[in-house]
């Protein structure tokens, strides 16, 4: 190994090292399983949104592709898992794999659309794809149940043993475990040479290609990967609620995940997770205290956050983590 390669390898290894706050984070997340029942349903939604935001982070934070139609893959995963459950087998894990595959396939097929163009163009193309898919799902009621939603899903017990109960504990455990596994994978990927090449593309794609990075191929790969993650999130939602409606493809869903990711900060894997926690819990708290007026407070929060500067917020959080880690 040359000296340069050694340094590079060391750098990668340093990036990949686990830090104390990360471990605390995951221990706490799993410890929440032991809480008395009551909040697991909300936590389940948080975990699903977190996975969805993680998926968006892979393309937005690491490859610089902004998307306002990420719900397309979420919805594809949800419908695939739902139909698979109804038509083939109720086993959730098999359905999850199908959901992931559906997301990935759609991601691969549509990835060529986001290879060129400005941020605005990509924003609109992704949005367009999601809207077309929404209309397609609406136009095929014999498959999707149309606007009434896909009914009659009976999801089997997890691993053949754990039923999805009313309290949502199984659901949360399932979603959290999936999130954790996929997070580990994402962590490996972004800290690999592949991940570094993505960041090079985000900063300057021309220079990256001059360095010999196959830009388009890398973008297709990461877009497909992110779509697979979104498909997984969709499948989790379909299985833990045993229901799929057109809302999974709704513009609102794409906007929510983008907001969550922006709140948490794009470009670090915990950004999506932190954003999902803040966004969901804030929304739930506001909505239960002011069912008619919560949107106002949510809006105020976003405006203030934007004006104060969220870099300051997430940057501060990251700085804090770094300082704790150094100790």
């Amino acid at each position, binding site marked *: 190994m040359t000296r340069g390669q050694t340094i590079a390898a060391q750098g990668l290894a340093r990036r990949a090292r686990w830090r104390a706050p990360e471990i605390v984070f995951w221990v706490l997340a799993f410890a929440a399983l032991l809480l*008395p029942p009551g909040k697991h349903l909300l936590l389940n*939604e948080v975990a699903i949104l977190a996975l969805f935001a993680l998926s968006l982070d892979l393309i937005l934070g690491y490859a610089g592709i902004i998307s306002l139609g990420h719900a397309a893959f979420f919805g594809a995963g949800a419908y695939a898992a739902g139909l698979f459950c109804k038509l083939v087998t109720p086993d959730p894990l098999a359905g999850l794999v199908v959901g992931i595959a559906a997301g990935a396939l759609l991601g691969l097929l549509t990835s060529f659309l986001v290879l060129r163009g400005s941020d605005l163009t990509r924003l609109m193309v992704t949005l367009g794809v999601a809207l077309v898919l929404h*209309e397609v799902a*609406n136009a095929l009621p014999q498959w999707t149940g*149309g606007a*009434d939603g896909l009914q009659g899903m009976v999801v089997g017990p997890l691993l053949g043993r754990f039923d999805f109960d009313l309290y949502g504990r199984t659901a949360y455990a399932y979603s959290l475990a999936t999130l954790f596994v996929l997070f580990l994978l994402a962590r490996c990927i972004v800290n690999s040479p592949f991940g570094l090449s993505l960041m090079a593309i985000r900063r300057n794609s021309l220079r990256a290609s001059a360095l010999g990075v196959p830009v388009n191929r890398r973008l297709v790969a990461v877009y497909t990967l992110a779509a697979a993650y979104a498909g997984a999130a969709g499948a989790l939602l379909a299985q833990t609620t045993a*229901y799929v*409606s057109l809302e999974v493809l709704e513009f609102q869903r794409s906007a929510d995940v983008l907001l969550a990711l922006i709140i948490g900060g794009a470009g670090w894997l915990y950004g999506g997770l932190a954003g999902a*926690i803040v966004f969901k819990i804030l929304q739930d708290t506001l909505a*239960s205290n002011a069912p008619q007026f919560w949107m106002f407070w949510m809006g105020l929060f976003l405006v203030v956050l934007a004006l104060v500067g969220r870099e300051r917020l997430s940057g501060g959080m990251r700085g804090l983590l770094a300082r704790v880690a150094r100790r």
Partner: protein
Amino acid sequence: MLRREIAAIAALALFSSAAAAQDTAKIGLILPMTGQQASTGKQIDAAVKLYQAQHGSTVAGKKVEVILKDDTSVPDVTKRLAQELVVNDKVAILAGFGITPSAMATAPIATQAKVPEVVMAAGTSSITEASPFIVRTSFTLAQSSVPMAEWAIKNGIKKVVTMVSDYGPGIDAEKSFSDKFKADGGTIVENLRVPLRSPDFAPVLQKAADAKADALFVFVPSGAGAQFVKQFVERGLDKSGMKLIATGDVTDDDQLNGMGDVVMGVINAHNYSASHDSALNKAYVEAFKKANGGLRPNFMSVGGYDGMHLIYEALKKTNGSTDGEKLIAAMKGMAWESPRGPISIDPDTRDIIQNIYIRKVDKVNGELYNVEFATIPNVKDPVKAAKK
């Protein structure tokens, strides 16, 4: 950050489970309070509040507490809220449900937890079949459409074009109207559907105009009605000799007076009009307006009002027991006088049986109302009746 969050959650969970007292009967009211369906949510919420103000909040020795949640019409949120209400707040009854998918998504919860689900708005026929714990106090689209078809045939309308919003209730309306109309010897020239979110009705109206039928039968959800009627008139279809017949959603009382004189003369069939001629209704409309700054109650509001009545009466019958099966048994077959007229709960289907009125939009004391001129008594949901 997260640690604090989790501590807060733990504290909340402990608190809420300790607060579940024995002498209250809680009702989880899940409605769209924000989003496109917000006006539905507000009408029902107002009616529920009015009912409690008029009848007190204690029944059969139990204090009835209503917990309002906003589901923004997103079905997975509805389902989660329902689950939380059952698990955390230990509600005895779930109620509300603005749109069909919300009611459907919650059905498994009702079955699993044995908690009655009182549907106060959503109107697709099949909802009550999704769980033996679902009871409906609103209406089904077929209930309004079939009487409209009967009336049309009897009044010399032979050829009809239908136009409905492209989703569950719309398809119910289209199918039940067309089947009845054809069975009675009429001809359906064309079945048109518009996307649920169609900002401009021009293209379908042009299609309807080109079809040259005696009448156009329409269902669009309340809210889109005004625009539709205006464009109908703007296109000159009213003068082309084509009659406009509709379900009452199109001429929703909530907005009717703001639609302007263009809606005068529209014939429609529905379960409730604010101008329904009964002492009970006059008192209801007056009290409702007084409590809500002049807002006129619409057919959604009576769904909420009667839903509360049903819950109160069921609790009386069970002597305050909140056992789900007992409550459902008590609700089956219950009959009473509502502001909309006499209604009852079908003991077989748990769906509502009510009079359907044929109405014509007209001016009463300077305001536009749906004026009832014919009554079809005790209409059962025709879709489920046909299945037997």
